[in-house]
């Protein structure tokens, strides 16, 4: 029987040591997918490195990295290719260690169906439940639950039924998230001995379900035909004009026949529905309407493109379309929004925190994203939603996102291409989280910015100055406050209108509810940034003196201001000097362990990478440092040149 002619992508997951690599390796062997020389190597290595006694250690076929073989664990996904008479499979063997969940998620994002393994002697472990959750959230509906190491239970039917019941409970728990995998098939096996992999085992006369291979042969492919509206996020723009020469002479002919002098083809992956020649389409986010002229698929022009095809469209008229725009049927458009409720899987060692800014990437474009609220963390025991103020590596949770601009999207369960995204740390470029869009939040639309009748420019003009923020950052006792005070004195003496924000007037007032944990430090800086912004809008030159140890937080504040209005000044006094000064005795207390989270001692300070000014380390020349800042402000036009300092500008 011919089930399907497509490639089926299968994920093998589950907790560490449950036998995933052994299962796949053994399956490859039993289905005749191993070559003689590979078998020779396997037997030879099993004798030397194997952990399965006299039998071949099939996991050695999969664990291809040196570190994996030395430690006997799986670190990253291995891909193996299996063909049976009727079908071709790509098997992704995912690591079970919690530490490598990001690699499991990588594999899950591409698979149609999943084999979830567990050890019959230990049952469901937290990592088994984590993998089941990630599979479900990523839209994997077909699940085979393999109860491995049944031989170690003496092929106990009771144990198997017990685990089957847990499994039913698991799928029920998952419906809490509106994701319902099909009721999984549960199969008792011994991956090592090969029972119920490709042939019925004599040990399980009480089991009448399919073998692993039976299940593989019968599992349906993901259905692409469901019509939720065609979406073509533009991935790449083909662009050429008359002058463009090609030995094949394809293009000149094309341009002649279309009567145009430029060719623009909008390439991308079509999902959600079909598109055809002549169809009315809209280009998002602009919303401009036009119609499809040509559809290229490889070397051919086609009349109609189906979901799953990579195509290049040409559109009627001169259109301005760039990568990240989305071409959709004019009558079936996705929503556009800049605030979303989303689900995320955290992938990086740095925690996901409210207030942090990240690069948001989706098929429909990029933006800056801020997590405005962490709604919950999903507990693994029964998938309950737990209160959380941060999400750590490997956590799954629900958060609210604010983007810097509106993007078109579909909820993930309607279209996984236009409903998924990644969050990237702008400094380290680490993929911090991947996520799925649940729905937009409308709150942004209800807050209409008050339309001031007096503009910030007018307030600044009245004060005859250019408002800006001078943000001093550095270790405790580096001299920030002294420099800030000296600077304000200099500025006021020159007739400037200023405001100085530092620990005393902020920590004891506005931010007295905040402590020194990482989320609190972020919120502290965010509030200071907002206050500084209000004050610059009032026309003031604002000086701040805060340790502000995290680069991403300073960048967050920087982004609140127009370019050139924010000056990051690094007071780069070395730690030894600061510690020696220690005017308040804080370093001593931190060293003795009395103060936790003390910057420089047991909490990091991230030096600025692009400070507008770095003040010479430990020079301790407060007055000179303040003058250096004044000089910088002059040279970039924020302050009048020195010669004019006492003479007010004419006409003011």
């Amino acid at each position, binding site marked *: 029987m011919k089930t399907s*002619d*497509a*490639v089926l992508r299968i994920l093998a997951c589950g907790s560490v040591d449950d036998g995933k690599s052994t299962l796949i390796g053994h399956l490859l062997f039993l289905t005749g997918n191993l*070559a*003689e*020389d*590979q078998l020779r190597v396997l037997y030879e290595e099993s004798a030397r490195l194997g952990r399965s006694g006299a039998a071949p250690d099939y996991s050695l076929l999969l664990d*291809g*990295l*040196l*570190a994996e*073989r030395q430690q006997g664990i799986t*670190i*990253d*996904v*291995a*891909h*193996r*290719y299996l*063909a049976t008479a009727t079908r*071709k499979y790509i098997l992704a063997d995912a690591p079970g260690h919690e530490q490598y969940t*990001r*690699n499991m*998620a*990588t594999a899950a*994002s*591409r698979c149609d169906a999943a084999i979830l393994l567990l050890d019959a002697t230990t049952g469901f472990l937290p990592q088994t439940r984590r993998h089941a959750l990630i599979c479900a959230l990523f839209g994997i509906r077909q699940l085979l639950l393999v109860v491995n190491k049944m031989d170690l239970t003496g092929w106990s039917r009771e144990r198997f039924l017990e685990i089957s019941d847990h499994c039913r409970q698991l799928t029920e728990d998952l419906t809490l998230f509106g994701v319902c995998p099909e009721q999984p098939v549960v199969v008792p096996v011994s991956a090592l001995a090969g029972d119920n992999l490709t042939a019925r085992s004599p040990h399980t006369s009480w089991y009448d379900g399919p073998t692993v291979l039976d299940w593989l042969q019968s599992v349906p492919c993901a259905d*692409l035909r469901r019509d939720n509206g065609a979406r073509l996020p533009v*991935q*790449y723009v*083909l662009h*050429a004009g008359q002058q463009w020469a*090609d*030995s*094949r002479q*394809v293009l000149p002919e*094309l341009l002649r026949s279309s009567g145009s002098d430029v060719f623009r*083809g909008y*390439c*991308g*992956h079509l999902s959600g529905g079909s598109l055809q020649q002549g169809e009315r389409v809209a280009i998002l986010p602009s919303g401009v309407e036009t119609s499809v002229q040509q559809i*290229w698929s*490889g*070397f051919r022009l086609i009349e109609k493109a189906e979901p*799953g095809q*990579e195509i*290049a469209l040409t559109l009627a008229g001169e259109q301005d379309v760039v990568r990240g725009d989305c071409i959709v049927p004019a009558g079936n458009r996705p929503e556009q929004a800049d605030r979303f409720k989303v689900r995320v899987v955290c*992938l990086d060692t740095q925690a996901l925190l409210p207030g942090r800014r990240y690069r948001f*990437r*989706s*098929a429909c474009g990029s933006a800056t994203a801020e997590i405005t609220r962490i709604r919950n963390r999903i507990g693994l025991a029964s998938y309950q939603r737990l209160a959380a103020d941060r999400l750590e590596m490997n956590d799954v949770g629900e958060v609210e996102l604010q983007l810097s601009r509106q993007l078109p999207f579909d909820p993930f369960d309607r279209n996984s*291409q236009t409903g*998924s*995204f*990644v969050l*990237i740390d702008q400094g380290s*470029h*680490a*993929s911090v989280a*991947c996520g799925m869009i649940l729905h937009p939040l409308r709150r942004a639309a209800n807050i209409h910015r008050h339309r001031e009748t007096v503009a910030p420019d007018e307030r600044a003009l009245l004060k005859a100055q250019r408002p800006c923020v001078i943000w001093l950052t550095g270790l405790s006792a580096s001299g920030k406050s002294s420099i800030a005070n000296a600077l304000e004195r200099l500025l006021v003496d020159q007739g400037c209108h200023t405001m100085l924000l530092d620990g005393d007037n902020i920590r004891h007032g506005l931010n007295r509810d905040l402590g020194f944990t990482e989320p609190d430090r972020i919120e502290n800086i965010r509030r200071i940034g907002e206050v500084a912004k209000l004050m610059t809008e009032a026309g003031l030159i604002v000086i701040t003196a805060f340790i502000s140890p995290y680069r991403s937080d300073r960048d967050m504040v920087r982004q609140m201001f127009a370019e050139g209005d924010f000056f990051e000044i690094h007071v780069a006094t070395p730690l030894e000097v600061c510690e020696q000064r220690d005017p308040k005795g804080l370093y001593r207390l931190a060293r003795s362990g009395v103060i936790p989270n003390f910057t420089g001692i047991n909490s990091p300070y991230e030096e600025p990478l692009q400070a507008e000014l770095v003040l010479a380390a430990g020079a301790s020349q407060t007055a000179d440092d303040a003058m250096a800042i004044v000089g910088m402000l002059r040279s970039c036009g924020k302050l009048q040149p020195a010669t004019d300092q006492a003479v007010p500008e004419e006409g003011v």
Partner: protein
Amino acid sequence: MPVLAQLEQESIRIIREAVAEAERPVMLYSIGKDSSVMLHLALKAFYPLLPPFPLLHVDTTWKFREMISFRDATAERLGMKLLVHTNRSGLERGIDPFVHGSRIYTDVMKTEALRQVLDQYGFDMIFGGARRDEEKSRAKERVFSFRNSQHRWEPREQRPEFWGIPNLMKNRGESFRVFPLSDWTELDVWRYIRQEQIPVVPLYFAAERPVVERQGQLLMVDDTRLPLMPDEQVRRAKVRFRTLGCYPLTAATLSDAGDVEAVIRELETATLSERCGRLIDFDQTGSMELKKQEGYF
């Protein structure tokens, strides 16, 4: 969607994505069957225009002569720009696979040469035709494989990769190796060559060729640089190649498969894996992984 169509579409998506995010893309063209398929996919991805990148061949000077003429003819026929780079200092040092052994030779004439030319042009997105089914460490690699400014691969620190939205952000000097054929198998490649009638180097097809037998492997005598041991004799045999590399490091197999159809029939019943003729894979345990860490493909 049929298997080949599905693989083809996914590869095209990968190629377009990489180019869209690249400043200076380049395609490593090694003249073999995989390169031929990858190039064909790139032609499709950008049709009716030409792919917006040059081809790059790292020439060790030990390639089969037929490969070199095929390379030049292909670039000429398609109108693609072709860059050829050889490690001059390696040549001057007289690095020779027979004298120095495959390990040092590969280090200098392939890996070092590749790093030289990538640095020279500042390429940041580098296509390669490697497939995951070839070898165990390749089976572990991402489609978009991050390399630091020393071109090193860190297998334990691979970026998570979400299908459709790869994270291709990088700093100056960092780059990505991009493998559009990651999920293809040897048979997929040949079936696609048949379906699309893609030209390949004739060495893949059986013919009478001069060979010597050495340590159980058949080496083709492509030029006079192959030193013969006292007890060795050149004989003619009907052979073909399953993979093509440098002739001293690539063994031939006895075969009657004279055309694409016959090659596919042969592979459908083959009992040996593709890389059994690749001598460099057996240098040491995990040898491919170590080579890749140094910047080899």
